[in-house]
């Protein structure tokens, strides 16, 4: 494998890691506040559909993002009502949300567009375009041979760092933001406390309910950006039925892998993004290690890795203590 190929691989890694990262951080907020969220997948799917559908109908991708956000927040609210207000089973609520999203997106898109659960192709202007950062070289017009001539660092910058959509940069900026919010603000301290010992937070006169709703809403917002990235950011051009394809669960896996920490989550998501980028190029893998690795094996690798992590063979992953348990104020 030569240098430009490696860079292409890293470029896809960044693109594929973005929705994972956003969903993973969404799960981080939710689970740090003690609310299990296996409905990340469903929220992403709803946002992906609404973003693409609205962008297709109005021609404005920002309106699409807004619609996606509203949809995702609505689903987050359902999860909140079920698991915070009515103290229902958070896992069951998440399962319901995933199915609701899987069904509704197809039913509604069929009614709107009649294309078997697809939205129409999004053209220029109705999707997020890639941004060329200042100083980057446009690689589209250069052949591989010409690319090899360039300064390696400039090539790295032009290919991997530059040339993504705004949502990708938002996702990567969310990592330090999340770290700051959770570990350097009062809100973050309380949020983490609510996931470890809600009774103590309650005793201090702070509303457990409000904090948990806030966490669930942040999760909804982040899932919305993840969904919009899937359906409306170049090279994507529209919604396809079930397009999240288990990413919500890979994100959860990454969250456990990262032991509920934002910076580690970034590395975990990049690793899983890299694995999916490899799975798209199984011929490349064969040429490197000289073994014919089935692409299905690469598909399954994130899950297998997570199970190994979960089994505690690579350090123990200890979830927030009050995770999954509804808080009852008085017994």
């Amino acid at each position, binding site marked *: 494998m030569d240098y430009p190929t490696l860079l292409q691989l890293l470029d896809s890694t960044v693109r594929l890691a973005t929705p994972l990262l956003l969903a993973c951080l969404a799960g981080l907020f939710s689970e740090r506040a003690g609310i299990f969220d*296996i409905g990340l997948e469903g929220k992403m799917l709803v946002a992906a559909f609404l973003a693409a559908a609205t962008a297709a109908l109005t021609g404005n991708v920002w309106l699409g993002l807004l619609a996606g956000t509203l949809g995702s927040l609505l689903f987050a609210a*359902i999860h909140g*009502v*079920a*698991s915070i207000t*009515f*103290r*229902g*089973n*958070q*896992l*069951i*609520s998440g*399962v*319901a*949300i*995933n*199915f*609701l999203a*899987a*069904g*509704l997106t*197809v*039913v*509604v898109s*069929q*009614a709107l567009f009649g294309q078997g*659960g697809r939205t129409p192709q999004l053209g220029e202007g109705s999707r997020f375009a890639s941004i060329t950062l200042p100083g980057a070289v446009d690689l589209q017009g250069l052949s591989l041979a010409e690319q090899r001539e360039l300064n390696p660092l400039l090539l790295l910058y032009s290919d991997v760092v530059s040339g993504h959509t705004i949502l990708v940069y938002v996702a990567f900026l969310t990592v330090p933001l999340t770290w700051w919010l959770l570990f350097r603000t009062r809100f973050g301290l309380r949020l983490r406390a609510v996931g470890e010992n809600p009774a103590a937070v309650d005793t201090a006169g702070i509303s457990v309910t409000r904090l948990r709703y806030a966490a669930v809403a942040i999760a909804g917002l982040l899932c919305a950006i993840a969904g919009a990235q899937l359906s409306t950011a170049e090279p994507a051009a529209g919604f396809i039925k079930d397009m999240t394809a*288990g990413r919500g*669960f890979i994100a*959860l*896996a990454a969250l*456990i892998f990262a032991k509920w920490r934002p910076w580690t989550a970034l590395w975990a998501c990049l690793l899983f993004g890299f694995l999916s980028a490899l799975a798209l190029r199984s011929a490349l893998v064969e040429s490197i290690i000289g073994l014919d690795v*089935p692409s*299905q*094996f690469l*598909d*399954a690798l994130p*899950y*297998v890795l*997570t*199970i190994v992590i*979960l*089994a*505690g063979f690579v350090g123990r992953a200890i*979830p927030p203590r009050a995770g999954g348990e509804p808080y009852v104020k008085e017994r």
Partner: protein
Amino acid sequence: MDRMPRWADILLVPAISLLLAALISALVILAIGENPWQALLIMVDGALGSTSGWGYTLYYATNFIFTGLAVSVAFHARMFNIGGEGQAAIGGLGVALVLLYIPFPHWSLALLAAMLGAMTAGALWAFVPAILQAKRGSHIVITTMLFNFIAAALLNYLLVGPLKPTGTMETATAGFPETTSIPSFRDMFSFGDVILFRGTPANISFFVALLAAFLVWLLIWRTRLGYEIRAFGFSEGAARYAGIGATRMIVLSMVISGALAGLMAINNTMGSDERLIMNAVEGAGFIGIAVALMGRNHPVGVCLAALLFGILYQGGGILGMDTAIPREMIVVIQALVILFTGALDQMVRMPVERLFARRRARAALSPPGPALPGLQTPKPTGAPTAEP
């Protein structure tokens, strides 16, 4: 604990949940410009209006009985097994391996062997998450979910590669031998010229499913192991003091659950497809969750809920063909049922409980029987106050 009578818990609360789910589904159908009442009639007619409708309905119901029982057995030990999908898929692999590589003289032997293969495969697929939960504390929901994806990748690999016969385009194994074909409803219930259940996939597995439901009832409520599973699910701490080992309970309940989910494969893979195909499970593993929740984890409830979902599934398919309402409407209904009977259970339950508490309070104040004229009703002493 008993804030409401038993019948209200078993019938009224699920009925209200179901009504709410139906109401919202109707709104969705209205919103996409179709007539919900018309849709309901088409669904019921498509599912129950002919023996061929029934043939499909009962076929789907058979799948859901198996997966519903699987989820409910695990629920009794307070394990949430959402890996039914993967366990059923791997069960299909077990069936395929048994039927492809062992010659059978008669279908009955083949059925027994296939059942064994399906159960073993499904149980193995549930065993790993179970042992990880018991020994290492890995969350069963996450691991069973991950195993669904691994199962899908494994089958994808096997059906594209090693198990695919050379020269075919389809991602499927070779067809099973003729001698392993089990009787369908058409074979069993057609007499002379009257052919019933024409062209439908319902088969003898339906009766295996009913038998499994009965055996699960025996296991949970009539055996020592079942008692231990329920005790463990009720209070892990108390069960431990009573000498019930957590590891044993987690592993046994999950292995039984996985075996039941795997057993589904005799219906779809052996009975209907007669070879192992991709996506043979078609979400039945997940519907098992809705079925178990609606059926209140009781085998009778599971069978009834499975029948209801069988009707929904078959009716929804007809709906997809005859109207502009896509087949995916079933997924919406399924989600709403899970939401209302599972996650929002308290929302439905609380008003009902309050209603019964108020009625009981009123009943306590005025004793039953005709009040005699001229006689003052004695004030009841120590009348129980209404529970909040």
